């Protein structure tokens, strides 16, 4: 019996090693007819979940044009993308927030690729939902909810002291670009300044709010709206931010469809932050295959942006980015 065990062990180890090492030259088994431009190689990418579906879509389209190029794309969060890019573990890092000076010092070279925004979200059965939808909430009130914690009941939010329902505050537990941006919008420095119960992941935050009538949280554009219908997800409502502080929720401050929200982010009506540019980070200026890919993203790749729930970069920023990369 022992002999059989040893035999099986030897066979499986050998099989594993042979099978794995045999193809380490990297060629795929099915070689399509070579296109006129024989670009090939592999690009490794990791980072923000927000950009992950977008990137896989871009990779698919790019591969249609250049079949010799392979992609390895991984999620893990904006922070991981930065860490991986700076340490040379990947070619491109997807980072869904602004790049910090400390990171630039360590060699981070970045270009924006899409625009995204964070929206405050409450449950559709919130006790004061009508008032909120009519008047909106100012960013100062939001600050007092999320950062200082001075406001703790929904009555205080809308100015009706008799409503004593508590605010159930939710935030992200994983290191998220969305949190950083939201905190900065409200006057804080970063994610650690946000109060609230930490839930994992963007969909997780949305689910927490949808399950809690007294809940309030925040989500990226692609998660705050149901991407298949373009409308609000069932059970949640995007809070109008009263940017001009006139005490009413103006029509351009209310967002009930994805198109409305995207348009507001694109033309700058929705403030940035919490709107922001999502960045692709490389260690030092990109070159070769990586550079070609990024240039493609900034030009032909932009058409695929809206189906993933993002906003194309405005033309001037795109031009700037292209200059930076070339």
């Amino acid at each position, binding site marked *: 019996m022992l002999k059989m065990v040893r035999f099986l062990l030897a066979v499986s180890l050998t099989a594993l090693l042979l099978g794995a090492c045999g193809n380490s030259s990297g060629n795929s088994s099915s070689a399509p007819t070579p296109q006129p431009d024989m670009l090939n190689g592999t690009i490794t990418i990791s980072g923000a979940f927000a950009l992950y579906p977008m990137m896989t879509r871009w990779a698919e389209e790019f591969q249609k044009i250049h079949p010799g190029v392979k992609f390895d794309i991984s999620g*893990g*969060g*904006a*922070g*991981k*993308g*930065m*860490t991986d890019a*700076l*340490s040379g573990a990947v070619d491109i890092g997807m980072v869904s927030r602004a790049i*910090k000076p*400390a*990171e630039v010092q*360590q060699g981070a070279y970045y270009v924006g690729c899409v625009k995204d925004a964070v929206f405050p979200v409450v449950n559709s059965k919130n006790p004061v939902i009508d008032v909120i939808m009519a008047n909106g909430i100012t960013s100062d009130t939001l600050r007092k909810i999320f950062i200082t914690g001075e406001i703790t009941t929904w009555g205080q939010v809308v100015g009706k002291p008799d409503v004593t329902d*508590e605010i*159930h505050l939710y935030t992200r*537990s*994983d*290191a998220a670009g969305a949190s950083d941006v939201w905190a900065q919008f409200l006057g804080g*420095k*970063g994610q*650690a*300044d946000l*109060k*609230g*119960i*930490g*839930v*994992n992941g963007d969909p*997780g935050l949305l*689910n*927490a709010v949808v*399950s*809690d009538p*007294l809940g309030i949280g925040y989500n990226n554009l692609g998660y705050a709206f149901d991407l298949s219908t373009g409308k609000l997800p069932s059970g949640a409502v995007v809070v109008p931010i009263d940017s001009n502080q006139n005490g009413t929720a103006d029509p351009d401050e209310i967002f009930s469809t994805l198109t409305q929200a995207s348009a507001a982010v694109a033309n700058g009506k929705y403030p940035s932050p919490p709107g922001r540019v999502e960045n692709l980070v490389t260690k030092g200026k990109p070159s070769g295959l990586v550079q070609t890919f990024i240039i493609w993203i900034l030009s032909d790749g932009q058409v695929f942006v809206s189906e993933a729930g993002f906003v194309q970069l405005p033309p001037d920023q795109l031009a700037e980015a292209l200059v930076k990369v070339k």
Partner: protein
Amino acid sequence: MRLAASDHFLQGHKKQLPGVSRIRRDRWAGRLFFVFSMVPVALALLIFVVLLYKSWPLLHTHSIWQLLTGRVWKPEEGLFGFWPFIAGTFVVTLVALILAVPPCLLTAIYLSEYAGRTLRAIMKPLLDLLAAIPSVVYGVWGIIAIVPLIQNKLIPFVHRFFGDVPFISSKNPTGFGILAASFILAIMIMPFIIAVLVEILENVPRGLKEASLAIGSTRLQTVRWAVLRGVMPGVVAGIVLGASRALGETMAVLMVVGNVVQVPHSLLDAAYPLPALIANNYGEMMSVPLYDSALMTAALILLIIILIFNIASALVLQHVLGRKWV
């Protein structure tokens, strides 16, 4: 090292007898196996050294006392107080053990003493299966099933009848918190503990049990007085195993524990254990100075906690049993 008869025999008969090569093989195997046995020790030391090295930037610029007892955690401003995380880790693990151990013990005794053969045959693969469910899935199950249960049924119940009881009443209105995390942890470690306990109980020498039964004890008395005392070290080992697993479990806990940096005062409070801290922020470490050292320090603290825990339980056993226990 324990010597076999063959070693003594070898002394005087080195060249003459056929079986000598077996003995030589035995010696060589002994040396080889010794090298293998060094691997765990070397690995533990290596991890300790690497963690220490990586935390050094933080450790030698901040007072260790302040790090361990400080309560403020604002990495952007250079404030690193680990106490909330340490307290969170302890509370979550302790509650999980309290929830898990008695049912496990009882179930293991039932399985090994009273249950029929078919039941045992079903349970073994079932337990293996459950030990294999990925922690992400436990976390998701927690969010879908446990958190709403606590939030919608338990908390109103507690508020009505136990309004001010310390350790139970809490300001946390959501189901995310210690109770949810400990409950899921308890379920996660149960398969391990039961499997080990059953294995131990089944291997008690039959003669011992039969002798006890022969003098007229009930099966329960047999278990309590004859069997349990002898297997106590194994039982404690099984519990320590479960506890260590609970201390180190990351994904499932961070999805339901609330991730609020505070020292928990009640079962229903949210908390932030050390593994969750590391996992949530590991990607971000390149961006804030000293953040990566802080996370490595958290890992180091966890390592030391585990070390102390293991040594303490060994000492307790030694004291209780009056002999040297390994």
